[in-house]
């Protein structure tokens, strides 16, 4: 099937078999490897991307269901050669260890900050509740999201 949608701000047309998920489409169809495959069951959150500004599990959503929608992956966070404030905050505060959960963490945080520019630490934890980090790095991740929150400056 042919799919037309917006990917990281640009129009995108792609071919995908019926049974592909958004994750298959991104990694295998479009060679965007920033979005990771973790559990495949929607539990770990490492495949989180944004669809129309809200977080989705790329491993659970059928590719067909992105038709006409706007997707943002970790590759789309950087704009005009400048890192997103979240990326800068994650780097400066050491909020990544192995890095496998990082794209999903940043996109879940991106959705939160778009809706709530001045979240509390509790709200950050709730927004990231579906993203697992097995390096035990939650403290620095939460600090980084709070540091990048535009309404808290």
């Amino acid at each position, binding site marked *: 099937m042919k799919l037309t949608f917006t990917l990281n701000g640009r129009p995108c047309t792609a071919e995908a078999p019926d*049974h592909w998920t958004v994750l*298959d489409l991104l990694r295998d169809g479009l060679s965007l490897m920033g979005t990771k495959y973790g559990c495949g069951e*929607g539990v770990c959150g490492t495949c989180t991307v944004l669809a129309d500004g809200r977080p*989705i*599990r790329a491993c*659970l959503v059928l590719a067909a269901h992105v038709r006409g929608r706007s997707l943002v992956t970790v590759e789309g966070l950087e704009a005009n050669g400048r890192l997103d404030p979240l990326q800068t905050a994650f780097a400066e505060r050491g909020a990544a260890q192995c890095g496998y959960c990082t794209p999903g963490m940043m996109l879940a945080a991106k959705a939160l900050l778009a809706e709530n520019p001045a979240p509390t630490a509790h709200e950050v934890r709730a927004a990231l509740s579906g*993203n697992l980090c097995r390096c035990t790095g939650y403290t620095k991740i939460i600090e980084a999201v709070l540091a990048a929150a535009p309404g808290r400056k």
Partner: protein
Amino acid sequence: MRLTPFTLVEPESLSEALAAVARLDGEARVVSGGTALVSMIRLGLIKPDRLVSLHRIPGMAEIRADGSALELGAMATLADVERSRPVREGWPLLAEAVRRVATPAIRTSGTIGGNLAYAEAASDPAPALLCHDAEVRLAGPRGARTVPIRQFFRGFYEAALEPGEIVAAVRVPRPPAGSRGGYVKFTSRSAEDKPLVGVAALVVLDAAGRCQDVRIGLGGAAPTPIRAQRAEEALLGTPLTDDAARAAAEAAAEEAEPLSDLMGSADYRREMIRVWVRRLLVALRDGAT
């Protein structure tokens, strides 16, 4: 890891969808958000030949409220229900229960109709919808029908859907005037898990503090979501004292038929029903939720 291949059908009307489901060649499954169905395919629990997606059917995700009821199209996502102003203002118990489903990204895709059709015993929305005496609107090859939610859950992961039927919408009557409601979810492993037990309640207290109306819905307490009828009967017309709340919780624990699974044993579930029914009733009385 790829999904086992299937053909995807994307009808643009409910009647086309019903026809696609009714075709006799191979096994068809209806897909809405896919959060449960795609997992089941990935895990090899089902191997459908054909998925019939409801995404392209206009109007199926609408959320409408009037003086008497809320009408949720089956394709309304849990995130949309949770954020809907009419739902938050008029049906706060339902908004609260929906907000407790899994994680934000699951609620973006998961739908209220999919949640009901899946007939999960440990559903968060179901106990709230049971308290609201919701009605499930079905579309099928032999026409439309409406099933009261108390008759909708028929068994373990089994909804009252006849072959070829699709959940089209849910009608949720307005809660009684002066009612207070709350939902508590107890998980035994991690915050985003299914509830070990979930308790929803709606109560109306008269001027003397007696229960004029009391409804208690339980998730994870039986093979299906249930109303704790004996607990309700024990409370009706009596003042909601600490002792009355304890007796009602005892009745709920007794009438529950919990299962044992990886989240906890049947005995532990029964004990947690006793604890959380009592705590919720006392909190509602004290205006704490």
